[in-house]
């Protein structure tokens, strides 16, 4: 792990309470009976991805029982090949990606029947190149990213019509350089991450006006140093991922003040109980804990594994997929 070379003093900027966050994530995993937990029951697969990827970035993936996680994941796979958010729920493309990502973390992609998963995903591509989330037909560029990222991890991207998928994404490009969820949809950092990530993975970043989008993205940094998701909105730690990874993929991250952002993220920690929240002094959750840690990784905060901005997995995991034996 190369040290960050922009030399600010750790005393000045506070510290990342790694131990506390590991403890927090492991406790959330166990606490299934609070109201907050039950209400999020349906997206436990996403929660597993957020929690486990954070643990891996902190170098602590071995704190969990891999076998338990893996058998629960496989129990969420349906006949159609797709995965549900939790046992009992219907399959959806959202949870299919998270399942595949977690398997990649544990280097267990070989337990999958890849054709089965690929069939589920290719079946969701529409005539115009867009992707539906499930059989009920909701279309959103988030699902385009998911399909492309997932099949790429499984090394079978050519099973979808990539050209059409890319042209649909481009039809969602706005005049401010950003991207929305459907054609005409307002630019939003989350959608921008999805579209830029999908274009990155398909070697199509030349379609992005990097200077125009870069300026829109860098102006997400507000006075407090945090990033918002679109103009005139409040900053939120999760945008430290959506905005930051987009900036990194188009090589414009130097247009924000990295030190100030690091400070903002660290200020969002709950130093007593662990976890990171959307804003300082708000309630923490696994979602923001992941995005805070991943954001710090992108900012080269010392002691963290490097994260890949397009696949949203540790770089060593991605390299293992593409170059490993």
């Amino acid at each position, binding site marked *: *792990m*190369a040290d*960050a*070379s922009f030399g600010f003093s750790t005393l000045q900027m506070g510290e990342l309470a790694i131990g506390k966050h590991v403890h927090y994530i492991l406790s959330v995993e166990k606490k299934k*009976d*609070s*109201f907050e937990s*039950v*209400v999020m029951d*349906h997206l436990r697969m996403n929660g597993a991805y957020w929690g486990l990827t954070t643990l891996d970035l902190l170098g602590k993936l071995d704190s969990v029982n891999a076998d338990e996680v893996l058998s629960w994941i496989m129990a969420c796979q349906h006949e159609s090949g797709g995965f*549900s958010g939790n046992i*009992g*729920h*219907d399959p*959806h493309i959202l949870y299919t990606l998270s399942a595949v990502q977690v398997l990649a973390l544990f280097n267990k992609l070989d337990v999958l029947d890849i054709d089965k998963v690929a069939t589920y995903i290719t079946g969701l591509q529409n005539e115009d190149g867009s992707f539906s989330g499930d059989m*009920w037909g909701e279309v*959103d560029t988030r699902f385009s990213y998911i399909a492309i990222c997932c099949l790429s991890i499984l*090394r*079978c*991207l*050519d099973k979808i019509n*990539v050209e059409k998928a890319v042209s649909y994404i481009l039809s969602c490009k*706005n*005049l*401010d350089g950003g991207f929305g969820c*459907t054609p005409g949809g*307002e*630019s939003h950092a989350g959608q921008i991450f999805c579209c830029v990530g999908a274009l*990155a*993975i*398909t*070697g*199509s*970043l*030349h379609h992005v006006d990097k200077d125009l989008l870069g*300026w829109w993205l*860098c*102006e997400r*940094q507000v006075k407090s*140093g945090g990033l918002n998701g679109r*103009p*005139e*909105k409040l900053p939120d730690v999760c945008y430290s991922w959506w905005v930051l990874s987009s900036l990194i*993929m188009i*090589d414009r991250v*130097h*247009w*924000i*003040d990295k030190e*100030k952002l690091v400070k903002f993220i660290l200020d969002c920690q709950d130093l007593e109980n662990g976890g990171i929240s*959307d*804003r300082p002094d708000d*309630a*923490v959750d696994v979602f923001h804990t992941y995005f805070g840690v991943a954001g710090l990784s992108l*900012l*080269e905060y010392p002691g963290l594994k490097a994260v890949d*901005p*397009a696949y949203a997995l540790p770089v060593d995991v991605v390299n293992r997929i*593409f*170059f490993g034996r």
Partner: protein
Amino acid sequence: MHGRPRKAPKPEDEAASAAKAQKLRALQTQFFSFHHDQIYTKEAVELSAKLLEINPESYTAWNYRKLAVEHYLSQSECGPDSVKSVLDDELRVVESALRQNFKSYGAWHHRKWVLSKGHSSINHELRLLDKFQKADSRNFHAWNYRRFVAELMNRSEQDELKYTEDMIYTNFSNYSAWHNRSVLLSALLEKKAEGFLLKENVLPEEYEFIHQAIFTDPDDQSGWFYNLWLLDQTVTTDSPLLVSTWPTCGSDVLIMGDGCQNGSFSPFTTLLSDSGSFPIILYFNQPVEGVNSSTVTIECGFDKNGYLHWEPLSVSNSQAAQVWVAHLKFPTPELDSSVEVRVGHSKGIISTRGFQYCHPSTFSFNVHVQPVERDSFQVSVAESILWREENFKIYRAQLEESIPIASFDQLCIKNGHESTASNWRTEALAKEIECFRELLSLMDCKIGKLTLARLLMAYDAMSIPFATKLVHSEEVLELYNDLMKLDPTHHRYYKDEHSFVLLQKMTSSKESLLQHCFQYKDSVSSVIGNPICLRLNNLSLSRIGAFEKLLWVQMLDLSHNELQSIEGLEAMQLLSCLGLGNNKLRSVTALEPLRKLKSLRVLDISYNQIGDHSIDTTRYLCSSPLSHSVGSELNKDETVISDASLVNYWEAFYMFKDLNLNQLDIVGNTIADEKFKSALVKIMPTLKRLDGKVLD
């Protein structure tokens, strides 16, 4: 998950929460059994409504309700009244869910699904939307739904445009409204709808409108991006233009097979080439497709065939590029001929925005090929280029010597401008400049300075056919200096813009360019000849540009700057020697543009930051399996690195394997240990010198 205050849980809260949780779990368990057993009785469907009221994000319940509706609708006793009542129920459930969470994807989609069954009154939907707009004018779900409804009821774009106007007048700080306005307005302009035929009639009103937003509160970003779009609409011509070429129009080019100097030709137009061909470069103002031997024809004495293979200079597999290159072979080692290049005389060149190239252009030049003198030809390995101050002497140009500064009159590129019509553009810019000068006289604001800088640059760029100097450069540089102080958070954005303007300024006139033209002092190199070396050192450049003016450059010294990117450098097809030492390049992948420089022989990347950073910001801007951009097909064996020892150096493998470097300097980068250097030697068999050491 958002906006909840952090507070320590009190025991009574925890007990209440546990009780709620149990209740919800019981509800869920019961729901699952109905869903999995496909039970759609009234009671079962009611239960799902209860569940969704508490938790509208429980997506499976929305799926279940759709199945229940379909099940009910398929029954024979289902008449039009019962259909209405069933669908009304659904709309009610959605509204109740949206009250809980007006950003619920599941709820909004369910509503669209119900509407697609052909039910509900459009007016009811619009009233609902108005309620949501009042509650949160930035709710993008509501705006998306509005688009959906507008399409369903065939509402005109003009009507929707009026709606955005009303919203903006209610509150200027409504980015969502400005965004929607931009979508509608650009559609109307593109269609040339009635009242929207000419941009010059439409834009002035828009400028007035946006001024109200910006000038009321300059710190509010809502209008900034719309304003930038208006500027782009004012400045950009739809159809692509040819901006620059190499060779330049009217030039006399000497191609040498070896390093023998020929006094009667200018080193500016002398090229060393051992490939039996020389490049022809076309530089457009935007990326285009369709440049081929039908759309670009060559007429010259020595090539009757006239077939040329045109290659787009783009990263990855894109068929579109701003810069295109072809190589014209000369059949005999000695030659004297004129060459005429005709661009776009037949249709086919098209911009990525879909506009045809419609200004047929012609340029011609003379080419003289000098034969190789066998006995003076040396294959010298011992020479190496050392990028030191003392090795360069300034070049003294002859009085009449033609310096290839790209300007329209010199290039003889007849771009059929809308010469009088283009006045509206310069007039609009002049008016804007006046407005923003006025704003700045009243208050010192960031958007004021930034917009003025952009306007002045655009104004100068428009004036180029009539004046070769960029009149406002000094002022623009000052503005960016001010902005770096005024807005330190975005200091490096302004720095990049500053560098860009500085380069434009330095390359805008013969006098300023000559100050940076040198020649290498040592005796003529057989590898590179003795070209002009353009030296742009110690200028704190963080970014480079003005490539359309630098196509002629064979030797470039950019050492001792702050470059972290060399984006765009692929246009400089004549480059054989490049000095990038003492800059801020962060990774091997940042060198990607060099992969297109087939003539590059000498490269200095010493004393950069390659290896210092754990995060690679050009990882997806280079050719690699991660972005499916190696070779021409996805998932093919071309991507496999056969030599196992090179897998750890995959970036260097893809980067250097197709380059034919003779000399490479890499010392002073963390990555350059002995292992890395021996990997490089394996990857580049043609390399003769590495960090000063001669290789065998």
